[in-house]
């Protein structure tokens, strides 16, 4: 069961918390919770949106905006959503994998778990674009050609930081 436990826990937690925070943002803005599951666009965003977000920049900007408008629920959800789903998934995934006693398994199970779920979401989103009418943006490259690597690199950066923190937290007592 090495690897599998941390891998599954991190995926389940991230998806669950992503649904929670995106759902709260929608409900807070007066929308319907079910709209999260209507269409490939919103389903794919559930899988990758927080992971591939430049989280720190978002938190700083949203905090400043929230100071200016402290009643804006969607901004508060943007702040919490940028940090909590990925942080909790990485840290609790690391704790679940702790018994394996292997730095390699603890880090890789959570990191790959988050990367896999983001990659699925990003690929679904790209596949969905023709239906949404998203085509060429700039120069001669198509939208997905910068979106795909950009979103994957950002996910890797976020996942690396949080999984490293998860690793540090579980490192006590390794001797």
């Amino acid at each position, binding site marked *: 069961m090495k690897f599998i436990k941390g891998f599954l826990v991190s995926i389940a937690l991230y998806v669950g918390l992503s649904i929670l925070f995106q759902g709260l943002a929608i409900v807070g803005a007066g929308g319907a919770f079910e709209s999260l599951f209507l269409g490939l666009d919103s389903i794919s*965003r559930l899988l*990758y*949106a927080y992971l*591939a*977000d*430049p*989280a*720190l*920049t*978002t938190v*700083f*900007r*949203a*905090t*400043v*905006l929230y*100071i*200016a408008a402290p009643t804006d629920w969607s901004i508060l959800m*943007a702040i919490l959503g940028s940090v909590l789903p990925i942080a909790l998934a990485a840290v609790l995934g690391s704790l679940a994998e702790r018994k394996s006693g292997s730095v390699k398994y603890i880090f890789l199970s959570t990191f790959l778990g988050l990367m896999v779920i983001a990659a699925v979401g*990003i690929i679904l*989103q790209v596949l969905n674009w023709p239906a949404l009418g998203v085509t060429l943006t*700039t*120069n*001669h*490259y198509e939208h997905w*050609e*910068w*979106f795909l*690597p*950009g*979103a*994957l*690199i*950002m996910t890797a*950066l976020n996942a*690396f*930081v949080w999984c*490293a*923190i998860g690793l540090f937290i579980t490192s006590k007592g390794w001797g």
Partner: protein
Amino acid sequence: MKRIAQILITIVAFLASAIAFDFIAALLVGDNIAGAFLSAFPGQAQLTYLDRYIGFMSSDTLGWFTYITLGVTQDLEIIAGGVTVIGPLLMYTPAISLPGATPQGLIPIMMEYHPWSSTPVYFMPALAWLLKLIGPFIVTGIVGGAVAKAKKDAMGNTFLAFLVIAIAGIVLNIVHVYMNWISVAWKFSATLTQNPAYVYFWGIYGILTPDMLGYIIGTSIVALVFAVINGLIISIISVIVARKK
């Protein structure tokens, strides 16, 4: 080598490499207008990046050194988001950027505007920016690991070096602001290239209501948070370098 000497060498490695990579960026950008955002040093109207940089060094040496020390607080996220081409310029796109929105990041920009593309003019500024961003961090991580006696020391040294440089930058920033306060815009352009998060604090505390204290608090919070995060990330490089000790 004593611990304090190890930390000092790590600090010097960052400062020296930050300056060296600034000059490398100057060579890569030259007078390319696409890199104007990157070389928008305050009060410098010269044509080339190098002239602007040397002008900044000589006319506002304290400001320049503040800029160098606050280099530890750069935002690594711009590798993949938050930077795009706006008109003729390569620059930040401040936004809560859920993916799929405009921000692209340095690596996607380098892929899109590669040297054989129809508009390669943005490639060199993007490469210069990327080198300025990660070059000093990697050099510091390697030096921090190389001079340490053990893995644990390597991690601590690098993390401490980042923290010390950031605190020095914050103090220098406070001194500089109190010596020269005119408006936020006066200092805006140099340090802005290091981290988009500054924009948000300055935007609300500085430009709307030119407030010296708000500016200092905003800058200090951003600097400390990013120094801690960057220190954690780069200390992993040091551990890898020092793993056989």
